[in-house]
């Protein structure tokens, strides 16, 4: 299971809620699904690919904090369903 799959599963299960890259990193690491902890930079790279290449997620600016928040698109949720609804606790 790749970091990309885990990120998509995390966001799709919580659709339409949006999370910052930092929050996603913390939750992915806490899930214990990876062999070693990941960094915000790695997560950010995967988020950009999921957003720009696959359009499985969307990015939006949090006007309160200025941070970017990421949420799954309906296409992303569909992909997650098709690939077996991986659970990221």
């Amino acid at each position: 299971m790749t970091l990309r799959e885990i990120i998509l599963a995390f966001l799709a299960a919580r659709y339409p809620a949006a999370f910052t890259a930092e929050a996603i990193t913390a939750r992915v690491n806490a899930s214990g699904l990876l062999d070693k902890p990941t960094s915000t930079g790695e997560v950010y790279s995967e988020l950009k690919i999921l957003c720009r290449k696959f359009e499985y997620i969307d990015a939006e600016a949090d006007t309160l904090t200025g941070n970017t928040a990421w949420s799954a698109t309906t296409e992303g949720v569909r992909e997650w369903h098709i690939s077996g609804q991986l659970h990221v606790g």
Partner: protein
Amino acid sequence: MSNTRAYRSKIGRLPWALRNEINHMIRDGRTGTEVLAAINSSKEWRAVKRTTKQEDVSPQNLTDWRSTGYADWLTEQDKTEHIRQLASLSQQIVEQSGGDPAAVGSRILAGNLLTCLETADPADTVELAKALTALRSAETNSKKADIAGDLAALKEREHNLNLKKFQRQTCELFLTWAKNKAATKIVGDKSANNDAKTEALGRLMFGDLWDSDPEADASKSR
């Protein structure tokens, strides 16, 4: 995923639908005897038995299944339920916070709340619930203020309409009474001041309905 994991036990090699049925029976508290009877009398198991010449599924086989396949199935059920709850909660938060899933703020709010709820210990959750209650109360007060504002705007609009109506009616009255000889005589009376002319015109135009200005009456009596 564990529900597609290959099991090598007698029960584990049964078709998925029958295994699912067996798992539901165990979860619902059916006795081992009942579950074994259901398995051993099923057409799926009888087909396997005919082909492989195996003994019927035994109580020990069922005990083994409880600690492997059934345990995995239970975990999977928990995960599915968790996912269902997360999806439902996200939708509820977004709807409650504005009703528009496309609204950026509500999606971020939903994310923040889910993070708090999923990572908080029970004590923190109580504090969060209190904060949410306060937030809800503030939202209610804000809505009340909005309604009061709407009412004030409505009254102002009504007032403006009445003013316009009054102005139009005054002009219409002027046109009507400008042709009246008695009225033009009052207006042209150089011996009377404006207060006296107003009183005289009032009585002419409105008769008994004319309500004299009390201050003018008082000054007259003085």
